[in-house]
C-alpha cells in the first residue's frame, strides 16, 4: 500500500515498509541530507523536521504515521542561493561552530517564530531546550533567532 505525503511542498508517493523511520526516507530515498542522524533516541534534536508545522523528531517517527501530512525539512526553508531569513540570521551572527546541530535548531526556530513572531529570550531558550549543541554556540544561536525575529522572518 503506497504511502502519500507532502515533503517541502512536493507530493511524494512511497512504496515502502510503513515502519521505516522518516529520517531514513528523507536522507536515503529523497536525498534530503539536511535532517541529521545524531542519536536515534529523540535526545539531541539534529533530526528535527516540521510535520504539519510542528517540530517533530524524524529519527523514531515511522513513515506510516506521516501519511497524508506535510513535512518540511531545512531544504524546504531556503537554499544557499535563496536563504530563508532565519538561515540568513544564523550566517549573519556566525551562529555555528561545527554546525551539526544547526539544521534541527533552525527548524525549531521556524516553528517558534511562526507561532510567536516576537519571542522573548526565555521563549527562545524554551523552544530550543530539546536541542543539544556540543560546541557551546548557544548564546550566538539565541542571538540569531532574536535577530531573525527582528528581521520579521516570514512564515
Amino acid at each position: 500500500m503506497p504511502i502519500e505525503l507532502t515533503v517541502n511542498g512536493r507530493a511524494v508517493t512511497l512504496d515502502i515498509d510503513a515502519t521505516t523511520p522518516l529520517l531514513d526516507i528523507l536522507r536515503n530515498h529523497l536525498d534530503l541530507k539536511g535532517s541529521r542522524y545524531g542519536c536515534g533516541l529523540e535526545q539531541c534534536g539534529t533530526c528535527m523536521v516540521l510535520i504539519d508545522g510542528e517540530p517533530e523528531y524524524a529519527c523514531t517517527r515511522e513513515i506510516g504515521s506521516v501519511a497524508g501530512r506535510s513535512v518540511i525539512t531545512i531544504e524546504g526553508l531556503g537554499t544557499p542561493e535563496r536563504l530563508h531569513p532565519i538561515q540568513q540570521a544564523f550566517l549573519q551572527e556566525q551562529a555555528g561552530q561545527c554546525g551539526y546541530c544547526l539544521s534541527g535548531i533552525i527548524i525549531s526556530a521556524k516553528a517558534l517564530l511562526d507561532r510567536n513572531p516576537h519571542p522573548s529570550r526565555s521563549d527562545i531558550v524554551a523552544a530550543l531546550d530539546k536541542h543539544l549543541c556540543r560546541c557551546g554556540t548557544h548564546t550566538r544561536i539565541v542571538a540569531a533567532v532574536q535577530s531573525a525575529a527582528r528581521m520579521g522572518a516570514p512564515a
Partner: protein
Amino acid sequence: MSETLPLSIVNNRRLERWLRFQPDRTVKLAVGKVEIGQGVLIALSQIAAEELDVALDRIDILSGDTDDAPDEGSTSSSQSIEVSGRSVRLISAELRTRVLGRLAQRLNCAVEDLSVEDGVFLQEGNPTGYDYWSFAGPEDFATDIAGTAEPKPPSTYRVVGQPIPRRDLIAKVTGAAFIEDIVRPDMLHARILRQPSRGARLTSLDEAAVRKAGGGPIRIVRVGDFVALVGEDETVVQRAGVAAPAHAVWTGVRMLSPNQQEAMWFRDQPSDDRHFGDPGPPATGVVVSETYSRPFVAHAALAPSCALAEYCGGHLSVWSHTQGVYPLRNSLADILRLRRDQVTVRHAHGAGCYGHNGADDAALDAAIIALQIPDHCIRVQWRREEEFGFEPVSTAHMTRIQAVLDEAGRPVDWTAEVWAGSHVQRPVFGGTMLAHEALPDPPPPAKANDPPEANGGGGTRNGFPLYDVGAKRVIHHLALATPVRTSSLRGLGALPNVFALECFMDELAERAATDPVVYRLSLLSDLRARHLIENVAARCGWASRGPAGTGQGLGLAWSRYKNKAGYACVAVELEVDLDITLRRVWCAANAGLVINPDGARNQLEGGIVHAASMTLKEQVTLEGDGITSLDWDRYPIMTFSEVPEIDVEIVHNPDLPTLGMGECTFGPTAAAIGNAVAHALGIRIRDMPLTRERIAAALVR
C-alpha cells in the same frame, strides 16, 4: 634558518605543495590542518590573501588530503594558527617575493617600485600588464621553501584581523554538508558488531536472528572477531546492527567495576613516575595540601563517527572526519599491510570532535570491509551507544597540590602531584585502533604515553604555576594501563590541573585572610596575566563581592594554556540552591595577533560552555562489560536553559605572535566555577563534576 622554520614547512618544503595559481584566476591553497568547527579554513585563507595581496574570495582552499595537500600531522593542541598559520604566511610571502623579484628583472625596475592589487602587478601605481596568473611560472616553484622572505608588517594588514564570515556554514544551515551526506556510486551501508573489549572472542553469533531483525538482505562480513553487517538498505543494516549484540556470545570479556570510574582509583595503580622541576626536599615551613579530581569524560560529539572507504584496483580511498589524514593513512596502511602510496585519506567535515574520538576507528572499520568487498563504497555509521561506548575517553585525573607557606601565608615551595592515565594515545603515539584489536593478528596492548613536556605535556599540562612561588616541581604518575581506552580531549590535563591550581590559590588566599584577586596579583609578575585579571575583576564587580556562604557566588581564575599559548581569565557568577545555576561569565583573553576576531570569540565562548558542562555535569560511568553512560540521558551535557550570559573581551596585541586560543578558556572556566561554588556555599568541593549529590554531601559534612 631551517631550524627556526615551522614544522609544517620542514616537512613540506615544496612550494607547489601549498600554493598554485589556477586558470580561473583563483589561488589554490592546500593545507594539512582541517576544519573541525573552529573556523581554521577562513583564518588560513585570510593569511594567504593578505600576504599575496589577492582578494579573499580568490583563495580556493583544500585541506586534509594525502594526495593533494601537505602533511601537517594532526589538527590539535591549538596549534593550527600558531604553526600552520605561520607557515602559510611565510610561504605566501616567499612566493610573492620570488615572483616580484623576477618581474623587477623583466621590467628592469626596483622591486620597491612594484605593488600587487588583487593579484595584478603595478609599477609605481601603473598597470604592468602582468599578474600572478600570467606571469608566475614553474621557476617560481622550482626550489624548496627557504622561509626567509619578510612578511608584511601587521600595521599594514587589511584582511588579517577582520571578522570575516566562514564559507562552510552556508551548507551547514541549508542541507548536505558533512561526511554523513556523501553519496558514492555502488554504496553499501555497514554497522559493526563491536568486540566488547580487547581479547574477547566471539564464540557464537545467531546470524539467522540478526538477518531476521534486519528484515532485508544483509551480508555478514567476519574477519577474526571483527564483524560487520553490510547491505544496500541503511534501515535494514541499522536494525540488524541494533539487534546483533543480543545474538552474540563472547568469552574473555574484561569486566569493570564502578570504583574504576573515579580518579582516586589511579592512586594504587602501577605507574611510570616522572619528576619535573626543582629537586626536593621542600623548604621548611607550614605545609598545606589539597587534592582535586576530575573523572573520565567523553568527547560526546553530536554525531557518532562515520567513514567511507573504497578499494578499487589495489588502491584504498578513505573519507574521514579524522583530525589527521596522514597519521590515519599511515596507520591504515600498516594495519592492512598496504603500501602508503596505495592509500589515500581525504578529510570530510564532521560534527565537532574536541580531540581523538571514534573518527579514525570508524575509518579502519570501513577500510577492513572495503578490502573484503572491493569495488563498492562502504559507508560505516557508528550508532549513538557505539560512540559513547567505544570512543577513546579522556582519562580521569587527580592532582594533589602541596605548598610550603612563609609567615605571611605566601607559598615559597610548590609541588603538584598528578595521577592519571594517558592523555594522548593516538595510533601514532603508542595507541591502538579499535578494530585492529579484533583482527586475527591484534597489536600489542597500548603503551602508556603522554606528549613531551616541550609540547605542553599531557597529565602535566599547566601543572607548573606561573606564580612567583619559589621552588616548583611536578610529579607525574602516568598509569601504565587504564580500564578503558583514553586519548586526547580538549586541553588534556590543563582543565583538571588549572582547576586544582586556581582553586588552591583561593584556598591559600582564604588562609591568609586576603582577597583572592589581591593574593594572586601579589604573586604574579607576568604583565599580560595581571592585565587580564584586572580587566575581568573590574568588569565583574569583584570589588563589591559579597560575603561567602550566602548561596550567591563569584569566582575568578586564569591560566596561560600550556604555560606558553593563549592567556585567559574567567569570572563566573552563580547561585547554589540544590543545583548550581550559572548566571554570568566574564572573560578576557590575550593571544597576540588575532587573525579572525569573530572566530576567536566563538572559540573562547565555546570553550567556556564546554568546560562548564564538564565541570558541572559530565562523567563517564563504568560497570560490567564496559562504559554504561551510553546515551544523552546518562551522559548529560549543558543545555540552552543552563547556559549563562557570556561576555568575552579579546585584548588586541597585533604586534605579538599569534598564540593558540581554542583551549585557553577551558581550565580557567572550571576553576572559576569551583571558586564561585566555594564562595556561594562557604564550603569547598574539590571533585568534579560538581553535582547536586556532591553539594548535598558537602553540606552534610
